[in-house]
C-alpha cells in the first residue's frame, strides 16, 4: 500500500508485562517497518512469545502502547478489532490447525467468515494457497493428524495467508523441522514476502533463519529489546550478544548464511 518506505507498521512503546511477581517486559520499545522481515530472538523464557501474544491481542499488557497498522490494539472496540485482525495472519508453533477440519476447510474458515463468496471460488482460492505454500494438491482433503509436522506448518501458513494479510506473525516457524525442510521453509517465507509484499514478524531460535531471511534482528535481553542488523549485533560487546552471535552454532550458521546470501533476491517488491 502507499507510504514512505520506512513507514512503521508495528509500534510498541513502554510495554510492560507481568505474570504475578515476575516481570517479563519492562519498558520495551520496538518499531517494525513495512516490508521488512524482523526476527525476535532471546533466551528461553525471555518473553518472545509473550511479546508476540501481546501484539496480536491475546495477552493484555500491564502498561504501554501497542499500535499495529496505526491502530491501538488494546483500545479497539469489537468491530474494529475484527477489522484489524483481518489484516494480519498468525502461524502458531505447531500450526494450530483445527483438527476436525480438512486442510482445505481450515484455509476456508477465515474466507467463509470474512468474505462471502461462492463455495466454488472459495475452493479455488484455497487450492491456490495450498499450491503457494508448496503443499501437494492432494493434501487439501487430508486432516491435520494425517500430515507431517512440516506439512502442518505449511498448511498453517496457508491458513494465515488466506485473507492476504499485510503482516505475517510466525512463532518459531522452523522449530521441529529437519534442516532441509527448515531451509525450504525459510525460502518459502522469503518468496512469499517478495511476491505478496508482506511484513514478517518472526520469533525464532533458528540461527539459520535469522541469517537467511531477516532484515533486522530484535534481541530481547534484560526485559527490553535491542534492534539492529546482524552486522551491528555482531559487534555488540555485551556478553550475551557475544555468546549468542559468536557461539559455535552461530559461526556455522553465519558461514552458511553468507554462502547463501548471493542467490537470495533483493526482496524489495511491494504491492502498490
Amino acid at each position: 500500500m502507499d507510504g514512505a518506505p520506512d513507514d512503521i507498521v508495528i509500534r510498541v512503546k513502554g510495554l510492560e508485562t507481568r505474570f504475578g511477581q515476575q516481570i517479563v517486559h519492562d519498558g520495551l520499545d520496538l518499531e517494525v517497518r513495512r516490508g521488512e522481515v524482523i526476527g525476535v530472538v532471546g533466551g528461553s523464557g525471555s518473553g518472545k512469545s509473550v511479546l508476540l501474544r501481546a501484539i496480536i491481542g491475546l495477552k493484555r499488557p500491564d502498561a504501554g502502547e501497542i499500535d499495529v497498522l496505526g491502530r491501538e490494539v488494546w483500545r479497539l472496540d469489537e468491530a474494529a478489532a475484527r477489522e484489524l485482525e483481518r489484516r494480519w495472519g498468525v502461524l502458531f508453533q505447531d500450526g494450530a490447525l483445527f483438527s476436525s477440519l480438512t486442510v482445505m476447510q481450515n484455509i476456508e474458515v477465515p474466507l467463509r467468515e470474512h468474505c462471502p463468496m461462492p463455495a466454488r471460488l472459495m475452493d479455488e482460492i484455497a487450492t491456490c494457497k495450498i499450491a503457494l505454500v508448496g503443499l501437494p494438491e492432494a493434501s487439501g482433503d487430508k486432516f491435520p493428524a494425517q500430515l507431517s509436522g512440516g506439512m502442518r506448518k505449511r498448511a498453517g501458513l496457508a491458513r494465515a495467508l488466506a485473507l492476504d494479510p499485510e503482516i505475517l506473525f510466525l512463532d518459531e516457524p522452523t522449530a521441529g523441522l529437519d534442516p532441509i525442510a527448515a531451509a525450504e521453509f525459510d525460502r518459502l517465507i522469503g518468496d512469499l514476502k517478495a511476491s505478496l509484499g508482506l511484513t514478517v514478524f518472526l520469533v525464532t531460535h533458528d540461527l539459520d533463519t535469522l541469517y537467511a531471511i531477516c532484515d533486522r534482528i530484535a534481541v530481547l535481553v534484560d526485559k527490553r529489546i535491542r534492534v539492529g542488523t546482524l552486522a551491528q549485533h555482531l559487534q555488540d560487546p555485551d556478553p550475551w550478544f557475544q555468546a549468542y552471535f559468536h557461539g559455535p552454532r552461530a559461526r556455522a550458521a553465519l558461514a552458511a548464511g553468507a554462502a547463501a546470501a548471493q542467490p537470495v533476491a533483493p526482496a524489495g517488491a511491494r504491492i502498490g
Partner: protein
Amino acid sequence: MASAASIFAVEDGRAFVLRAEGSWLVGDAGPLDGRLRQLRLPSGRQVQLDLAGVDRLDTAGAWLVLRTEQALEARGNTVAVTNVRPSFAPLLAQLREHGAVSPLPHPIPPHHTFIGFLARLGEVTTMLARRGYAMLGFGGLVFTTIARLSWRPGRLRLTATFVQMEQTGLDAMPIVGMLSFLVGVVMAYQGADQLRRFGAEIYTVNLLGISILRELGVLLAAIIIAGRSGSAFTAQIGTMQVNQEIDALHTLGLDPVEVLVLPRVFGLMLTLPLLVFYADAMGLLGGCLMTWGTLGINVPAFLDQLRGAITMWTLWIGVIKAPFFAAIISMVGCYEGFNVTGSADSVGRLTTQSVVESIFLVIVADAAFSILFSLLHI
C-alpha cells in the same frame, strides 16, 4: 482510491480487449467471480487482458486473472496479459510457477445415492464386526495378563488399585445414592397408584423389593459408573496416548496393561458390587418413605412385607451381576483409550463412543443374565 473491482469487454478493431479495473482483492472476489462467469468469452481470437486499471491485487485477484486467462486459452484464443504493474509481476509469476489449477468440482457425496447407502451399510457392518473382534482381543490380552500376574501376585499395583477404588466408588456415592433414592420414590409412587385400583397397594412393597434388588439398583449403578468412570478411563488413557506416555511406558519396560488397565479393572470389579448394595439400600429407603407418605405403610410393616416378598437370592442376583458389568465398563473404557490416535479431537470422540458402547453392552449382558436366570429357574 480503492474502487470496486470490475471488468469490461471492449471490441478494439481486430483485437478483443478485456479491461480490468479497481482493486482486485479477496473482499471483492465474490461479486467479481460472478461478473467473470457472466462474461461471454470469444473463441479463436486474439485477446488482450489489460490490467492497466487495476490498482491493487492480492492472491485471490491474481488467481482470478489467471483463471480468466486459462479459460480464454481453453477456447482457442491467444491471450496476452498486458500493462501489468511491476509490483504485481512476482505474485503472478509465483502463482503460475506453482501451477495453481482449478480444483476438481466436488463429486456428489457418495452417501447421497442408494448404492452409496448400501455401501455405507456394509462398511458400518464390517466396521462393527471388526471392532467387536478387536475388543474381544483386548479382553483376551487383559485375561492373559491376569493369568501371568497370578504367578507373581506381588506385581499387582495395590496403591493404584485403591486409588481407582476411591475415585470410582467412594467419590461416586453421593450421585449413586441420590439417584437410587429418587428412583425408589418414583417407583413407589407409580406402583401405588396402579395397584390401589385393585386394592393391592401393599404389593407395592413386593414390586419395589424385587425390581430394585434384581434389576434397577445394579443397572442404575452400572450406567452411572459407565458415564462417570468409563469415560474418565478413556480420557485418561487417551490423553496419555496423545502425549506418547504409553510409548514411554513400553520403552521403560513396563506393560501398559499391567500398569494402567488392571488397577482400573480390579478396582471397579471390587467397588461396583459394593455400590450396587448401597444403591439397593438407598432405593428401598426412598420407596419406604414414599409408601409411608402415600399409603400409610409404616417402616415395620414395610420391612415385614419385604421379608415375605424377597429371599436372599433376590439380593444376590443383582449383586452377582455387578462384577461382570464392572469388567465390561472398565475394559471398554481402557480399550477405547488405547484407540486414541494423534489428535485431541479423537479423545473426545472415543470418550463418547466408550460410554455408549459400555452402556449398550451392560444392557445386553443384563438381558443375557435374565435369560440365564430364567433357564435356571431362579
